């Protein structure tokens, strides 16, 4: 494969070289089990503590509030199921129609198992009205689960306002912060969520590891049951190389936050303007303000996303239509549908998601190569 222009960072990211450097010693040499009594295992335990602190620092949390998991999906599942298990008399869930499948499919499953769910919608720009949360919350609401930033459009949700409401109403709040991490600051001191999910591979850490923030004092029940790891909150021998990598990735994310937010944001804006101005019948999905600095979702009318992706792929340009884990399925994205995007647009939507490794030249290339691709596909289209 030739040089790749990787603009699919909301699907997964390149592992930072510094992260790999940090992981190698625990893969190669310090392979002990941190639960072991011997010093060889204990030395590994220290690295685990350090990683926990690094993750906590990114969120301004206490290390004791961090539980390591196998990824964003497990974190999401754990938070919601813990809230339900610790309040068995409460059987109502509030969430949105535009959550990631890690929340959406779980809550649908719970709905089938007899829980009541209020599904909050979004407007045409992808915004969620916090008042909708206020109206939805009931006496028997066990948890409100609202993502911090949408993975497809990058649109931000008003978690601060929602947290004020759930606090006032004394309801637990979970936020899927998988996409906001490393792109915008998020402090659990400023925004009093009870649970927060994050995933390593979205912030230049390795795949297969994530974390769940659980606010001190919030009742908890483990999802994976077995040994006493993670202070009894998540059983199973810890994924030490993954956790060490995640810790380092969090440290780097904090360091790069300001600088990269600005630089990446400018690159994204240039890409977006370049494409929208040179391609007719194209439009932005979601609000132009109030979103992640790295993401743009653009709809090209009359053409189909998969076809665009494959022609881009021949030039080594990687992007995505819908979220990575629903690509391969036939329906247009549930997020764009919830926003009411007409299907001729929704079908031709492409998400470009940049990262701190994205270069000016790469943006130039995409701005240059995409218009002829769209033109070529439109020649085929019965709508044109």
């Amino acid at each position, binding site marked *: 494969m030739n040089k790749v222009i990787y603009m699919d960072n909301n699907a997964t990211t390149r592992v930072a070289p510094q992260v790999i450097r940090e992981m190698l010693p625990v893969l190669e040499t310090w392979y002990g089990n941190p639960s072991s009594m011997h010093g060889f295992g204990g030395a590994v335990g220290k690295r685990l503590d350090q990683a926990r602190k690094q993750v906590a620092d990114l969120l301004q949390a206490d290390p004791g509030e961090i539980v390591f998991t196998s990824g964003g999906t497990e974190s999401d599942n754990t938070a919601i199921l813990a809230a339900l298990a610790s309040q068995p008399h409460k059987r109502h869930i509030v969430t949105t129609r535009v959550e990631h499948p890690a929340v959406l499919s779980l809550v649908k499953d719970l709905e089938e198992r007899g829980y009541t769910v209020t599904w909050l919608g979004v407007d045409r720009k992808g915004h969620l009205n916090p008042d909708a949360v206020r109206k939805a919350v009931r006496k028997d609401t066990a948890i409100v689960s609202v993502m911090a930033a949408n993975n497809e459009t990058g649109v931000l949700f008003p978690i601060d306002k929602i947290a004020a409401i759930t606090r006032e109403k004394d309801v637990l709040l979970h936020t899927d912060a998988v996409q906001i991490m490393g792109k915008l600051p998020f402090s659990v001191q400023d925004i009093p969520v009870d649970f927060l999910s994050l995933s390593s591979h979205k912030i230049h850490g390795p795949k297969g590891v994530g974390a769940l923030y659980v606010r001190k004092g919030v009742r908890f029940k483990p999802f994976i049951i077995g040994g006493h790891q993670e202070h009894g909150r998540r059983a199973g021998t810890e994924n030490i190389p993954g956790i060490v990598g995640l810790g380092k990735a969090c440290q780097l994310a904090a360091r790069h936050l300001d600088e990269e937010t600005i630089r990446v944001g400018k690159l994204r804006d240039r890409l977006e303007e370049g494409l929208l101005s040179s391609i007719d019948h194209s439009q932005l999905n979601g609000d132009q303000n109030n979103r992640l600095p790295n993401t743009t979702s653009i709809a090209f009318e009359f053409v*189909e996303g998969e*076809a665009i992706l*494959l022609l881009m792929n021949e030039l080594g340009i990687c992007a995505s239509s819908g979220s990575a884990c629903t690509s391969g399925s036939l329906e247009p994205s549930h997020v764009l549908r919830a926003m009411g995007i007409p*299907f001729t647009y929704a*079908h031709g939507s492409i998400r470009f998601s940049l990262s701190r490794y994205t270069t000016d030249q790469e943006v130039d290339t995409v701005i240059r190569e995409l218009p002829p691709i769209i033109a070529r596909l439109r020649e*085929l289209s*019965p*709508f044109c």
Partner: protein
Amino acid sequence: MYSEKVMQHFATPQNVGVIEDADGVGEVGNPVCGDMMTFYIKVNNGKIEDVKYQTFGCVAAIAVSSQVSELVKGKTLEEAKSLTKGVVAEALGGLPKQKMHCSNLGADALARAIHDYETRTHGQHPCPHRENQTAGCTQGCCDTGEIS
């Protein structure tokens, strides 16, 4: 995910376009995915002399339309009618399971174009689903626009 043949058709689709004075036009929309395909045929002496199409659809749909156009060009209407989605998929070296329905799109759009031609030329076309030419289609295909 896709066979080489699919990718080849996708990269260089054959017979793309519109026949302005077509003898038959068939359009199908796929309710599953919202994709669309239109086939145009020119008929001469019971043979499909020319065929063109437009597709708003996934890679499989584009490859399918290109493949169908190649398969039926120069064939008699009877031969063209016997084209099934299985034949199309096979000619393409197979399709991923969740994309098999896209091959329907091609065979259906072509069938509709032939149907349109026959309706235009014979008024009442010889529908295989009719007991006699005055009765309705037992499959309901003409009435609902669905051709099975």
